[in-house]
């Protein structure tokens, strides 16, 4: 999932999709200066990572964000980073404490 989101183009596709909701592949591809097959490859990666859903209506492909996947990835990453961050806050305090003790000496 993280490797799926590691690519900046794919991140922008997911972002654009979450703003627009359901979109046609052609409409989704418009702001990107890459070919339609290239976009399709990115969409395939996102689909495999369950970050988007694809529905076929004849020749038209409709793309939707996969809410569970996107939320889970974001939530997990946010929690994970927040865990380190809160530890680092405590470390910050600890280091400040050490320093003030030393100054008092």
């Amino acid at each position: 999932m993280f490797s799926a989101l590691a690519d900046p183009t794919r991140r922008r596709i997911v972002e654009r999709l979450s703003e627009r909701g359901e979109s046609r592949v052609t409409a989704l591809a418009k702001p990107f200066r890459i070919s339609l097959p290239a976009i399709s490859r990115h969409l395939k990666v996102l689909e495999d990572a369950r970050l988007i859903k694809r529905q076929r209506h004849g020749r038209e492909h409709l793309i939707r964000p996969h809410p569970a996947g996107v939320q889970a990835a974001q939530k997990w990453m946010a929690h994970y980073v927040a865990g380190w961050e809160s530890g680092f806050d405590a470390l910050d305090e600890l280091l400040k404490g050490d320093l003030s003790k030393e100054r008092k000496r």
Partner: protein
Amino acid sequence: MKSEVKISDNRLQITRVFDAPRVRVFAAWKERDLLQSWTGCKDTTKVEIEMDFRVGGSFTQKMLIKGAGECLIKGQYDEIIEPEKIAYHVDMGPISTRVVVEFVEQGSQTKVILTQDGLPDETLRKIVSQGTTEALDKLDEMLVRQAA
């Protein structure tokens, strides 16, 4: 957020500047009592650490987490260059993640660059695809609390 966070491929990098000299920041990772006093997130109520701070040495962190119970993390130090770098890995069942912590002197301050590889992309994907958010939370609890 006071840290700079970069996510790329299977890697997470967190950079933070501490207002303390490098030796002191390094000591906070090296000395058990110091490490014990800051490790864990805000829901961690108790931390017990055992560690053999040398290359090849093991460590365990037993944590009590509000609402999640006890959590045990086991790992091993892979590289120690005092006071510049500590590399270790943590094994959690099928997942092994590698962490490199670098300490860079910046005048009287110290920049800590924490790079974590082997984030459980595949495992996470499987859990999400099964829709078991409970397991995901559990994994989350386990991973959030590893800092050594």
